[in-house]
């Protein structure tokens, strides 16, 4: 089925009418869809079949975004568009206007260069009506994209969509600003990837949800702390941040170390930032709902946001559970889950979870689940999970709703309450070494039941059978020593936290002004011989070189010190 219209929406008339009425009823913003069309997706070193296919994949990926209405101008004009591109006339406003026929607002053009280690793609959203400014962006993609056309198209579509929406609302989508893991020390050299898109290379200090962090030949492990759990990320490893407390270890080694008790001052220090957000959950949900107004889940939750009662949330959730299986909510959810992990719904769920595990949504869901283990909601969500043949989802189930820590590798899934655990995935073999704590291990590629591992146990699997062994005490000792060395609490605990008084209070600090303007102000007050400090936790800099760009008192001589001006 053609997911996007050629010249007009290719839907049965009655269905189109129904959609239109639904859209009008749900939200007026549905009318504000941006009509776009892919003009071409040209990749250096690829033949015309690939280019044509990539343009199609890009269009399809864009069509999944409910904020865009995608037309297929290439269907009838592919040859002409390619010729115009080759002769450099594709950006001609007259040509674009003639092509669009008042239907398409933006023509999307993708031109990729093949570099040594990546594709660098210049993305342009050309104004089809008139000669307005084009929206431009750059996508860096792995060379693997040359073989994975569909994913390449999705990566480009995500970049286009972000650019178009950012331009539309003059702000970044909410999901891009939330749920970002901050590394205590940046991983370097490292690479941050979402799908096939390279988000950053070199030094990586932040890991947004749904991205993959590849740490290359780094000098040593780096630590990430989520609440009171420290993840130790090792060199030559790759991790995907799927959901809060859910990490995928693609290759390499991952250490997990439970931190100090959350009730202690150190624990409060670590979790303060998350606690601060608890009041913002509903605001965030509302914002997210606004991003995709046709999404019924967020529509429903959006209504909940206007209420402020724990009971009402439960009521809403229970009302949802009472709906039948043909309910549009579950259809929507099912559709959403069938999409990839960068999907809005999943990412949003995860972001909400990232804010605070004690927030009302999770409490509410928890209570619903405790009411009845066969609750309709859970069963429905379970059904949703089975919609996708991907075994990860079926294994994952509703782990996101649990207060457990989850690590996935291509061969097994580990969940539980680890205190000191090392996981490795090398080739096809995944290994978990439990020094302290308890975890459940389940191979992903067979129907073997999960096995429980206590302290001083090792589990190993290629995805089918599970081999359980004792952990060598010498090995355990070595692991604990290594963890002790890497424990972020040890090295970073400032002695200030032991001092009394408000000024030494733990937790997030007050908002500080932008670092650059603070240093600018400090620079100006150097003229008064002041050494003003810059209050910011961002990367610090050296102060200006003395002797250059100096002004004020430093440069005003003392004429009246002249001896011939002294005296009566």
């Amino acid at each position: 089925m053609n997911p996007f219209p050629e010249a007009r929406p290719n839907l049965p008339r009655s269905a189109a009418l129904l959609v239109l009425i639904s859209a009008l009823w749900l939200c007026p913003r549905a009318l504000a869809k941006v009509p776009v069309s892919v003009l071409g997706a040209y990749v250096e070193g690829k033949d015309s079949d690939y280019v044509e296919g990539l343009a199609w994949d890009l269009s399809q990926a864009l069509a999944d975004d409910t904020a865009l209405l995608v037309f297929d101008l290439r269907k009838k004009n592919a040859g002409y568009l390619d010729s115009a591109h080759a002769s450099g006339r594709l950006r001609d406003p007259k040509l674009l206007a003639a092509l669009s026929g008042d239907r398409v607002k933006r023509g999307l053009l993708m031109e990729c260069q093949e570099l040594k280690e990546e594709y660098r793609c210049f993305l342009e959203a050309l104004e089809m009506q008139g000669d307005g400014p084009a929206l431009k962006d750059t996508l860096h993609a792995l060379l693997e994209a040359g073989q994975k056309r569909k994913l390449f198209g999705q990566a480009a579509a995500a970049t286009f969509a972000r650019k178009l929406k950012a331009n539309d609302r003059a702000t970044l989508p909410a999901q891009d600003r939330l749920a970002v893991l901050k590394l205590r020390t940046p991983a370097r050299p490292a690479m941050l990837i979402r799908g096939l898109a390279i988000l950053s290379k070199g030094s990586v200090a932040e890991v947004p949800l749904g991205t993959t962090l590849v740490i290359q030949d780094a000098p040593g492990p780096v630590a990430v702390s989520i609440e009171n759990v420290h993840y130790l990320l090792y060199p030559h490893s790759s991790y995907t941040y799927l959901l809060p407390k859910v990490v995928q270890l693609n290759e390499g080694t991952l250490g997990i170390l439970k931190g100090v008790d959350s009730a202690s001052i150190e624990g409060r220090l670590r979790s303060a930032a998350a606690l601060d957000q608890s009041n913002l959950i509903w605001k965030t949900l509302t914002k997210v709902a606004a991003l995709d107004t046709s999404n019924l889940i967020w529509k429903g939750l959006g209504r909940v946001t206007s209420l402020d009662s724990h009971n009402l949330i439960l009521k809403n959730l229970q009302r949802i559970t009472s709906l039948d299986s043909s309910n549009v909510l579950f259809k929507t959810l099912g559709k959403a889950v069938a999409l990839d992990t960068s999907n809005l719904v999943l990412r949003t769920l995860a972001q909400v979870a990232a804010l605070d595990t004690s927030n009302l949504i999770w409490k509410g869901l928890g209570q619903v689940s405790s009411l009845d283990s066969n609750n309709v909601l859970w069963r429905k969500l379970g059904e949703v999970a089975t919609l996708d043949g991907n075994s990860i989802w079926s294994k994952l189930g509703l782990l996101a709703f649990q207060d457990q820590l989850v690590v996935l590798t291509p061969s097994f899934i580990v969940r539980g309450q680890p205190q000191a655990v090392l996981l490795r995935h090398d080739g096809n073999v995944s290994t978990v070494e439990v020094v302290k704590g308890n975890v459940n291990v389940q191979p992903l590629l067979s129907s073997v039941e999960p096995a429980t591992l206590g302290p001083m146990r090792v589990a190993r699997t290629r995805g089918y059978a599970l081999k359980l062994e004792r952990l060598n005490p010498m090995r355990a000792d070595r692991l604990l020593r290594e963890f002790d060395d890497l424990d972020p609490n040890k090295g970073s605990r400032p002695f200030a936290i032991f001092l009394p008084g408000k000024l030494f209070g733990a937790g997030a600090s007050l908002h500080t002004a932008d670092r650059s303007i603070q240093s600018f102000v400090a620079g100006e007050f150097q003229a008064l011989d002041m050494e003003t400090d810059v209050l910011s936790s961002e990367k610090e800099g050296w102060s200006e070189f003395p002797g250059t760009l100096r002004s004020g008192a430093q440069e005003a001589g003392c004429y009246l010190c002249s001896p011939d001006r002294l005296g009566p």
Partner: protein
Amino acid sequence: MKPGQSALVWTLALASVAHAQTADSTEYGKERSYPWIAHSSLDVFYLHTPAEPGRPFPYQASLYQGFTIQSLSFAWFHIGLRSRETYVYGFEDPYREPMVLKLQGSVEILPDLAYASLGGNIPLLAGKLSVEDTLPLYQALNGYDPFPSPDFLSPQALQIAVFGRYAWANWTAMAGSAYVRETLFRGLPGASFYPAAYFDLFGRAIFQGAAARHRIDVRASLYGDEENADRIPAHLEGNLYQLRYEWLKSLRKVGWQLGAGAAGKPPDRNRRIMLKSDLVAAARDENLQRAYGEAALTWVPSPGILWRLHVLPKAIFSWNGEQSGYEAETGISVGLKVWEYHRVRATGTVLMGALDGKQYLGFGIHAEFAFRHLGVQDLDDGPEPAEGG
């Protein structure tokens, strides 16, 4: 009330206001803390050449204690204490300023857009000079002086400034203006004077390119009249115009900073002298012009240590060609993390120069320790750019 007492009262008032404010605590709970940094620094500079037989070598030693705190969600404050001792050829005794108080406060008027600052100098224990010291003082303060703080007098002064910032795409632009009024300097018995007030206009543009960061600074300092104790204008200081470009790049463990700039200062104009005949214009005081380069190489072998080499070559000349020379400063710095959050930094410099047939050779050190309390934070490592870069 003495200036020191007023400062104390002011500080206490700030602290109490900070303690009383609840806007943030209501929203975020009681754990929100005030970010602050306390730092101490020591500078010593010693001029080995030119040497004058039988006299000690000129030197300058300075100590600074500073405390900066964000005690309101929209404002931050600084209090500092400067002690400095300077000896130049010709002084009977070194000129000492044992205690000069620095106070400054900044507010964010429009978030991320507009800011204002007010600050000043209050000499608590001011230095004294004798009339015999005036010639060496005049010679030290006019023309070339290799000291890190050539103008070592600290008269009481007040500066008020407004700043603006606007960021768009890869560009960040900042601009501001400041007015500084200095009050009577009483360090010279019988010859007190008002140093020139000035008006500063400055701007900065930063462009984050794909390969590197580019930064352009411009500054114009417009000086008023220097006046005698009776507020009679005696001398108009030449304005100062400065321009600088910086290229900043950081790659894994290494960072580069290259720059070039120039500072032009038209001649000072003296007061016309009333003689019995017609008014006769006094001679102009030519000022020195500067053109300089900046180069720094930063290296971070491990997250806890940072090294930096810098070279600052400078050409010095006057427009009438009577004076020309150069100055070159070379330095090596090391920065260390202490207890993760806090910092120790030290710099050693060698300064060489020549002007008017005199050779200059000086050695300096700068050391500082910063005790930082910035709340929950994620410290970054790696090559550090110049501030604001």
